[in-house]
């Protein structure tokens, strides 16, 4: 005996077309919301459009907002419609009609949301590739490097509690000032010489972890001059909250003049620095300290690293 198919509830006489009554306001509201998001809100979305990475992030956020708004509006519209139309009337003690599945609606919902999710997955991957990693650290062997030609290399060195910057193409000088040229690809090499930090240049849309012993590469091309806020985005100790500074983007000519001046001005201290490298081995200093101890030279408080290092308090 064949199983009996569940009976569809008979449509009540005079029942309005609820689907249409929900669809029309949803469509209007979605179009209005998406136009507002794209035209009015998008130019003000973080992190701005100062660099290629920032502009791409802003574009990506706007795309996601445009996609998400109709979904959110559909849920809210249905919610409001249900509250208004299907609410229990005063004096009505009857149970509501039994709820049955609607295959067409369920299938439509699953297909639509799947399409959106799959589109975002493909879109995100394409955006990572075409936007040179979208400002994120790509590790030591970056693969998202399209269009990056002749970049200015800037090494970012995190240390408790300050970032310093080395410019290997200008003699390898190191400074606390972050100065970058416009209209030039910048290749950040982010590392640390103590604990884990994170280099976050907000207006550039660049955020890359600074790990000791790791060269983390990120790209950005700056479109216009201005101030750059740099913060550490990884809890790194007592003064983590104060580990910030301000860089600036200047014209290529101004940058070149600044870099040449800094190279000359800092020549003496550059001689003290280790040769430029993608990472710096922190064990060099302890080894030196052992030599100092062997030579009878005392450091605070008598030893650099006791044999029990790293002992936790």
């Amino acid at each position, binding site marked *: 005996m064949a199983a009996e198919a569940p009976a569809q509830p008979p449509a009540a006489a005079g029942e309005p077309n609820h689907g249409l009554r929900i669809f029309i306001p949803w469509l209007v509201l979605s179009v209005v919301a998406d136009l507002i998001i794209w035209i009015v809100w998008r130019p003000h979305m973080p992190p701005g459009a100062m660099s290629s990475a920032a502009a791409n992030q802003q574009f990506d956020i706007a795309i996601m907002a445009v996609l998400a708004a109709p979904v959110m509006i559909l849920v809210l519209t249905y919610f409001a419609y249900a509250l208004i139309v299907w609410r229990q009337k005063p004096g009505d003690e009857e149970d509501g009609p039994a709820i049955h599945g609607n295959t067409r609606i369920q299938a439509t919902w699953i297909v639509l949301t799947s399409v959106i999710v799959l589109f975002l997955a493909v879109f995100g991957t394409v955006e990572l590739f075409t936007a040179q990693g979208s400002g994120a650290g790509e590790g030591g062997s970056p693969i998202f490097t399209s269009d990056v030609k002749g970049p200015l290399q800037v090494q970012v060195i995190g240390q408790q509690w300050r970032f310093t910057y080395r410019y290997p193409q200008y003699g390898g000088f190191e400074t606390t000032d972050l100065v970058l040229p416009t209209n030039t690809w910048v290749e950040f090499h982010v590392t640390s010489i103590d604990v884990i930090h994170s280099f976050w240049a907000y207006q550039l849309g660049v955020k890359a972890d600074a790990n000791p012993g790791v060269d983390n590469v990120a790209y950005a091309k700056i479109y216009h001059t201005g101030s750059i806020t740099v913060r550490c985005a990884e809890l790194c100790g007592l003064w983590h909250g*104060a580990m910030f500074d301000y860089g600036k983007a200047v014209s290529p000519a101004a940058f070149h003049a600044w870099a040449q001046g800094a190279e000359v001005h800092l020549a003496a201290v550059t001689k003290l620095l280790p040769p430029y490298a993608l990472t710096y081995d*922190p064990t060099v200093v302890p080894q030196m300290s052992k030599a100092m101890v062997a030579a009878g030279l005392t450091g605070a*408080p008598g030893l650099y690293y006791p044999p029990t290092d790293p002992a936790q308090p």
Partner: protein
Amino acid sequence: MSLPARVSLLIVAFLAVVAIGAFVVLHYFLGGPATVDYSAGVTPDTGATVHVVLQEDPQNTVSTHPDWVSYFIQNPQTKAWEHTTLFKVPAGSRIDMTIYGFDGCTPLRNPVWGQVTGTIGDVAYVNGKPVSQLNSYSGCNVGHTFSIPGINLNVPMATPSNPSANLCATSPCSPTTTAKNLYKVVTFSFNSPRATGAYFWQCRVPCGGGFVTGFGGPMQTLGFMTGNMEVVS
């Protein structure tokens, strides 16, 4: 349980909670090191000169961490050395710093901090001789640094001439009774910012022995190797 017993228990529990809260507030929020006031009697934003005096010691025998390296600040009124790293200066003033360096040497993790920056003329004076940088890798030259990142100030502290000799072993050390070759006097000047607020300062030598990368313990504890310069108007 009888009613009087329940009431008594409730009162005891309430008092215990209050006591714990008071301990936390008093010990952790109000119980930090004292602030030495160098702003008293000085009109801010006039370029007036304020003389601030510190010393850095190989130990801190007046604390519960006698093996922690530590700074001390001299009280301008009493001339007594106080175990603190908090001091207050007037805004828009010239700050003449004198730091007595009693501790031995340790290499900087980053040699760039051997450079003098942010002082007037980008220079410091070690026993009266001007220096613009010290090389902590070439020998026993640098004990600590005095660095205020907020104003890009960095001054490496020179070490005693005879580092293999016994260093001062009782804190606070005394410049008047300690042999001259067992400490260095570093002086420099800078202008305090006009913007009021707390500017943290730190040492950049990894001198927190026994801690990861040498930057724990005294390096991250107020009253030892880091503190605040409070700029007031």
